């Protein structure tokens, strides 16, 4: 049964959906504030705070020095006082200058305090390549962050999901890392594919973490993916449908917690698993998803393939970047391979 009677047809870009939920939470709760570089007047390099300065002022939409350790750590301190900061790391690629605050403090303080302290903080960051920004500005690093105990990890692929997951992230009393893919945001200077722009309810709603979403049902092959690659997998599925291969596309939506049940259910149906990831291949998402399935039900697996960045830094020039970041063709090829096994 639907929450409302009407069909929702108001479409938003993913960035507008994110901003809408942030604005809503800020109106509801004075303790929510946003800090980051260029989030005030600029509105976020990737439009993540577009328009918020006007409504909320500099105190709640705070520009900060280029001192990621200091300001992320300050967010941790404020969160431990009971505030609900949202702190933006402009590019996920910059995590290395502040990783200690991320993984040794914010992710561990709840555990180390035996649950006496909690850190209700949302850490947002832009991820992804496909626009030739080279090795230090194009990574997704999903595996790196998902490997850290104590941090929930959200990766939306559509405006609808982005809004519901952001509401949930802000209301969560645990630290949540929220990675938005630049290519999906609908930024003026970086055209998005059409998929991420979806109808979005005006009301607030929360999408629970650990609930993967089947973005396309199919009987033959399971493609498990996230972020930008949901849309590339859907495009591949359309082409493959013409060849008679019926692909199911599972959008993980959160990596921590990981919805193994939904993946497993799909694989039990199809027997064939292709995991598609924009992060580096080894020691990351593709390995984990395959191992979860193998560990839980090895017999369900008839064939398996990994599609990811082949353990090289992201190269700058177009032919090479295109080569290493999986596209719909790469997905199709691997799906065909498992389908014929």
């Amino acid at each position: 049964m639907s929450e409302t009677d009407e069909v929702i047809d108001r479409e938003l870009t993913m960035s507008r959906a994110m901003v809408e939920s942030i604005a809503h939470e800020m109106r509801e709760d004075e303790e929510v504030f946003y800090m980051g570089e260029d989030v005030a007047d600029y509105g976020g390099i990737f439009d993540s705070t577009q328009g918020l300065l006007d409504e909320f002022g500099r105190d709640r939409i705070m520009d900060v020095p280029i001192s990621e350790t200091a300001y992320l750590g300050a967010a941790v301190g404020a969160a431990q006082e009971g505030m609900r900061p949202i702190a933006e790391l402009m590019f996920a690629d910059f995590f290395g200058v502040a990783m200690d605050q991320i993984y040794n403090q914010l992710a561990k303080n709840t555990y180390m305090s035996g649950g006496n302290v909690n850190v209700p903080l949302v850490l947002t960051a832009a991820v992804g390549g496909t626009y030739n920004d080279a090795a230090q500005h194009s990574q997704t690093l999903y595996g790196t962050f998902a490997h850290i105990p104590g941090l929930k990890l959200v990766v939306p692929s559509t405006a609808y999901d982005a809004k519901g997951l952001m509401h949930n992230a802000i209301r969560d009393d645990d630290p949540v890392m929220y990675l938005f893919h630049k290519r999906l945001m609908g930024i003026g200077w970086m055209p998005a594919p059409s998929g991420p722009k979806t109808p979005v309810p005006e009301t607030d709603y929360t999408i629970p973490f650990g609930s993967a979403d089947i973005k396309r049902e199919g009987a033959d092959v399971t493609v498990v993916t996230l972020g930008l690659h949901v849309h590339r997998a859907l495009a591949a599925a359309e082409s493959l449908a013409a060849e008679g291969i019926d692909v199911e596309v599972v959008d993980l939506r959160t990596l921590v917690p990981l919805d193994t049940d939904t993946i497993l259910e799909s694989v039990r149906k199809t027997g064939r698993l292709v995991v598609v990831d924009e992060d580096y291949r080894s020691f990351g998402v593709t390995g984990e998803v395959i191992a979860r399935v193998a560990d839980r039900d090895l017999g369900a697996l008839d064939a398996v393939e990994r599609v990811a960045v082949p353990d090289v830094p992201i190269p700058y020039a177009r032919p090479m970047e295109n080569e290493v970041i999986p596209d719909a063709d790469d997905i199709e090829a691997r799906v065909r391979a498992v389908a014929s096994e």
Partner: protein
Amino acid sequence: MVSQDKLCELYADMLTARYYEERLQEEYLEGKQPAFDISAGPIPGELHLAAGQEAAAVGVCHHLRADDTVTAPHRPHHVAIAKGVDLKRMSAEIFGRKTGLGKGKGGHMHLFDPDVSFACSGIIAEGCPPAAGAALAATKRNEDAVAVAFLGEGAIDQGAFLESLNFASVHDLPVVFVVEDNDWAISMPKERVTDVEDGSDRAAGFDMPGIRVDQDDAIAVYEAAGEAIGRARDRNGPTLLEVQVHRRMGHFMGDPQTYRSDADEEAALARDSIDRLEAELRDHGVDDDELDAIRDEAESRVDEAIAWAKEQPHPDPDDAYDDVFVNPPSGVTTEEPEFELAEVNADE
């Protein structure tokens, strides 16, 4: 002029902190016989004791309220005691018991007591940004709470501290950074690793007052800290305060200190801030009986806390699985809403 009552309070906390470290040392080493094994005994793991550094902790923390946040580094006990952290539950944590501040999960470098706004971190200088953040929260909420970050003199070369100076200064945050200069960072004397002579000199590059208390003197610290914390409380910005202290023990228990000259060690032992304050109290006319009473009370508080701690239950192995996240989960839904969304083209 600091009142005699206040001096007695400082003295009591210094004695408590000193005796606490001595008792922990005993307990720790007891389990390390005959051959030192770091993982054996009632207190396993690393243990960093602060004997000789009490003046800094009490001189500063006696200006603070329960809602003023303090962050401490890997050597936290004296600060925790001065801040009023629950001594029993802190001891239970150090002994790894279920009723410890962190249910035995944190250990001595990770003591969290939200009741008195106390936290630590074992990573050098990484307590500075959260202290600045607590100060930021106070300003956002228009409260007059302040925050204090403690760190060692070896930590003043670390990015987290240096960035925090700017962050606090540019946002005029009510925070005080307190550098405990015990001359050593493990085996490295400060001259070998740090360009400035005094840690407080760093302030000059960050448009912030830098004060140094050159002697291991609780009263001098109390006065200097009063100024710094007053400035914070009055919303006149942050301060960097350095205090000369002395490391009476090894860096951690088991440290052979072969890198340290006997002369240096003896000098550290000779300059005892507790003796100094005791002399001062005598000058004020506090007599032996009163001093003994303070000492007895301090010692029995410590003995009781440690005895209590040692009687506490050990955690169950399965407790390890709890508390990674807030438990039970709060503020989040577990049900997905249902909306009827118009069809859209989901192709790329």
